[in-house]
């Protein structure tokens, strides 16, 4: 257990250190951010908005084909790219500025 936690922490730190990554947020199933590298207001904003967006995306995928499921969400905008890895009990959000 402990090594898994350490491994997860290490990988997360590595991701945060990659080029262009602005911040990472982990949100639990209720929409509460449990770990973040951004400030509070931005974190709560992203958590709230992306929770509902991911739910919409997942329901879209499942409506089209009920045996399908959502694995990854990428929102590419002019200034940044928002990457969301959704699961049943958490959301892993990374915001990256790819064109640097």
């Amino acid at each position, binding site marked *: 257990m402990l090594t898994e936690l350490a491994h997860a922490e290490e990988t*997360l730190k590595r991701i945060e250190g990659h080029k262009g990554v602005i911040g990472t947020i982990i949100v639990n199933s209720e929409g509460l951010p449990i770990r973040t590298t951004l400030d509070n207001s931005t974190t709560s904003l992203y958590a709230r908005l992306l929770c509902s967006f991911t739910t919409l995306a997942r329901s879209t995928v499942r409506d089209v084909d009920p045996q399908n499921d959502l694995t990854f969400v990428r929102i590419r905008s002019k200034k940044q790219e928002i990457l969301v890895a959704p699961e049943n009990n958490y959301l892993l959000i990374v915001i990256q500025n*790819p064109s640097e």
Partner: protein
Amino acid sequence: MSTSVAKEGKKMRCAVMLKPSKRGSNLLALTSRRSFTFSGSKILDRMAGPTPRQAVRVFDEENNDVTPQPFYRADLRAEPGSRFLVDELSAGSTSDQTTFTGSFTMPFSRSVLDSSRISSQSTTESVNEEMEETFCRRDFPFNLPESLLPDEKRKKGSVKEQMTQALLKGIKDILITETDTISLLDIPPTLVSVNADDADVIIEINKQYSEVCRNRRNNEKYVDRAVQTLNGATKNKQIQNNLMLMVDTATIVSAFEMYAPPEQEVMVYSPEMKQTNDAETIVDSRRSPERSLSLTCSASTVISTCSLKDVETVGSSLNTQVDSERIMTSDKFQFSLLLMERTVLRNNFQSQLAAYRKLPLLQDPDRLVKPKEKEQSEAETSCSPALQCLWVFSCELSRGCRVSSMAWNKKNPDLLAVGYGETDYRNHGPGLVCCWSIKNPMWPERIINCDSAVTTVDFSSNSPGQLAVGMCDGSIAIHNVQSTDNKSPFISSRECAKRHLGPVWQLRWNQQELSFTGEEKVESLYSVGADGRICKWFVINGGLDCTDLMKLKKMNNTLRKTEQNKPEKTAECVLSVLTPGLCFDFHPSDSNIYLTGTWEGNIHKCSCSNGHQFLETYRKHFCPVNCITWCPLHPDVFLSCSSDSTIQLWKQDCINPLLSFTSNQPVGEVRWSPKHATVFSAVNEGQLEIWDLNSSFLDPVIVQPAAPGLKMTSLLFASLTDCVVVGDSDGQVTVYQLQNLHVGESSQAIHRPQPRKKNKSCKWKSDMKTNKTTYAKY
């Protein structure tokens, strides 16, 4: 009571002198006069204590101070709003006997104070603010309902909560409850169904009424008349209240949020119920019916989800910590992290990866293209063959370690195993094997720490997850890279008695057909070591054991002439000392035949079935042969490179080399290109050379010098793309892309070699060309 009566009686008798004061005298005089006029009532209960202000003082004949005291002695400097008349009376600070009387005199004083209040209002210009306040405050207790509890109120009033910073910042739980519904007006609707019994009657009445309304205007029966209502006098009342803070919150709810699909609920429910922690299950079981609600309300603010139940608020705050632990240790989270890291890196390395995979390069439309970049890209479109560095596999673990060998995975062409270790005889430090993936150039997928410096790695074909690692101390370990736990190898040859006594210089997995069946391919591990033995390994009792395939005996040490016309084939051994074998390679189609290169510089062709004699010996090199490799596209040709800075091209049945190429430094490795039959690459300490035999025999087509201070040590071709992977002495593995390598058409003039060589080489070249087309599908 009696005392007050007595006092009044005394007053009546005496003449009283009023001494007017500076201000507010009118009022006080008024009041005092009033009080005197109403002296029939026993209100005057005198506070003998000092008053804050004494505007008028009344003395009787005997100079006793008989100034009527205000009924309510307001200590205005203290908290004004919290003092009550009753408190003052009952405080007993000055008058003790008056408590009882005070309560009795209250109803009487009411009329007094009321009138005095009116009087105060009438004389507004001389109103003393404080007095008015006093009177107002006197009104206070009488306006309160009967349920007055003096002590409690006093305590509440006096204890004022100190608003501290801490309190302001802390989270306050606000309990919102709903009161009972208060009906202010309830007129039940008078609707009657059409099917009721008396419906007809009602319809008739309605009709009549509507007719009346219609005829009302011009009908003489009805006359409009106005009436004035009598409105009572309004009275203004002012009260003071605390400011109510209003907070606006809003949320967006869409249709999908209102419905939670039943399967989702079940899926979420079941893992929660498996928790063995009791407190958690209690909270969760109470939360699960709410979970659908919380899922759907996830867009709304947190407060709304938490305020559903008291238990829930407590539970959720406690569970955040546990949640984070639980989430971060789950397998799915590890996978999400892996996916996320690869996606982030793919964004960063998009152009390089696209070049590697030979995909068209996409331009990001939102990216600001600087004018300098544009010029550079235009200038780079030259036609000469070149190497472009795509990226470098490097991490802090491998920094400083020398790359000793590399191997591609047979099944997953993106996985590259790199062995690190100092293979000099001086230091035998620990070794490292990193499995890198093309998808993540920044961090290896697997890290395997080895006890000794790693000299060679090879992936198995039959079971693609098995990686054989040969080390400097002679041991061989087989690791399973599919498992993330890489503490201990799958199998190790440490305990084997017949293991290599010196460093294992090369390992190979080879599939051999069993002669009788001809179909099964049994794969075995072969190794060549510094002790001069070539061994075949197999698994016994959970460990490795080997059988000797060949012993490399030292050959005759007579001086050999460099002419190629000496067909010496002495297989006699002068000394029975074994010479270290440095490399070997199996024939691509006939897996029984293999070549091995020795420390002496000889190359022996051997067979697996014959363990005593060499089939053939090729002599040309006079320094250790570092690498031997068969050409994958042509069956009989192989290359060898050696520390004497030469590369020799041989044909199987010819004991003299067909071609030799010179380099400026000892050549470490040489590899054939998997695509082009005439292209091969060699690496020596100072540079990487790409040779194209179509263009030139004397010079390499592309020369890439090593970065200053670095020595290139290892080389591999990438199988599906035209890229070359080079390892160096600093632990970096660089991926180069071959560009503009036009094979098949030569733009340069070919130097004509010597006639003898020419025949052979021309023949060989034509062979190669024909074979190239045959094998072009590779």
